[in-house]
């Protein structure tokens, strides 16, 4: 299994004026995803989709339950896991706002230890497929 969760739960404490309330964002989720499987995970705003993803990749600590992703424990093995997964959050950028997009990719390549020739081949391939050539040299903002 590439993703496996057992009774995965996450609660948040929120301040409501002077009172404190506990909100259960993810409630006892049991989920298995096999290698090669494509799964859609849908729900309304605030249903807990991002919270689940963040627990799968080690950003958030689960309140209870267990999770393994790619056979790794997201919290303990966060750094190893980041080499295996890619995550995109809505309206969140991996780019540096003041750099040309091309330079952001060079830095991300260094961060993820992608060798230079591999980085260039992959970038050129994606630039062509996504027709991004005109945007590559302009700053992200």
């Amino acid at each position: 299994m590439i993703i496996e969760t057992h009774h995965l739960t996450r609660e948040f404490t929120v301040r409501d004026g002077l009172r404190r309330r506990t909100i259960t964002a993810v409630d006892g989720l049991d989920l298995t995803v096999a290698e090669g499987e494509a799964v859609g995970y849908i729900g309304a705003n605030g249903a807990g989709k991002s919270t689940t993803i963040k627990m799968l990749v080690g950003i958030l600590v689960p309140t209870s339950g267990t999770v393994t992703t790619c056979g790794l424990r997201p919290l303990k093995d966060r750094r190893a896991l980041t080499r295996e997964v890619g995550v995109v959050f809505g309206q969140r950028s991996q780019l540096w706002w003041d750099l040309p997009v091309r330079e952001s990719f060079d830095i991300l390549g260094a961060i993820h230890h992608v060798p230079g020739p591999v980085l260039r081949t992959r970038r050129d391939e994606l630039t062509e497929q996504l027709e991004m050539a005109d945007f590559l040299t302009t700053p992200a903002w």
Partner: protein
Amino acid sequence: MTWQADVAAYRAVIGSRMRSQRSHRGNFRIDLTSSLLVGLIELAEVWVLFHNVPRIGGVGFTEMLLVFGLADCAYSVADMIFGHCDRLPDFIRAGTLDAFYLRPQPVLLQLITSDISLRRLARTVVGLVALTAGLCLADIDWSVAKAALVVLAVACGFAIFAAAFVWAAGMQFFLIDGAEATNAVVYGGRYAASQPASVWNKPLKVLFVFAFPMAFTAYLPAVQLLGLPGPSWLPSWLGWCGPVAAVWAWLLALLTWRVGVRHYQGGGG
């Protein structure tokens, strides 16, 4: 091989931050100038004070230049490298912190190396001038040990102020708009560090000697350099204890950061 690749990654980020600041030249010059002015005004404050009073807490103007110089050199370099850490809420809101979690490096190291404020170098220049003047004018009975103490004091002072920024970053996980609360320790601590600790009352001594060891960045080494008797609670041999204070400050900082990271509530969807 992996550590070289890691160093290359940090260098790529910091290099891009430096190029970005230098490429906006006009802006950078204004930043440098204003940073220099702030440093000069704070130095002028010391001068005005001692223009009216010959000695405060057993320390005169030239000795005070020494204290100010030690504190400002150490602080300005720490501020240049670590100063953005207490703006952690901005990183959370922009989603940058979540991006740090998704990269194969320690989150704290990514935060530290995500920016560098070269304009703070102007402050370092003011600190160096004050320190040099203090070292030349004050009555110091020089020896190899005392020269080593100057270097040790600046190095430990840098480590202590850096730890204060990291501690402040860790606290932001718990506080809402918490920079105001941590400023009291970080910027208040910098101000306290450039004063003679002999004038502090007991609660201030507890706060800035034992909890956040700011007194070890400048005043205590200066007391040892000048061969002065230590004030109450602070024997002069404490001037050599900078490394102990620096280790304590980092323990506190890293523990706060560690607990903070586990307490993180996520930056929204």
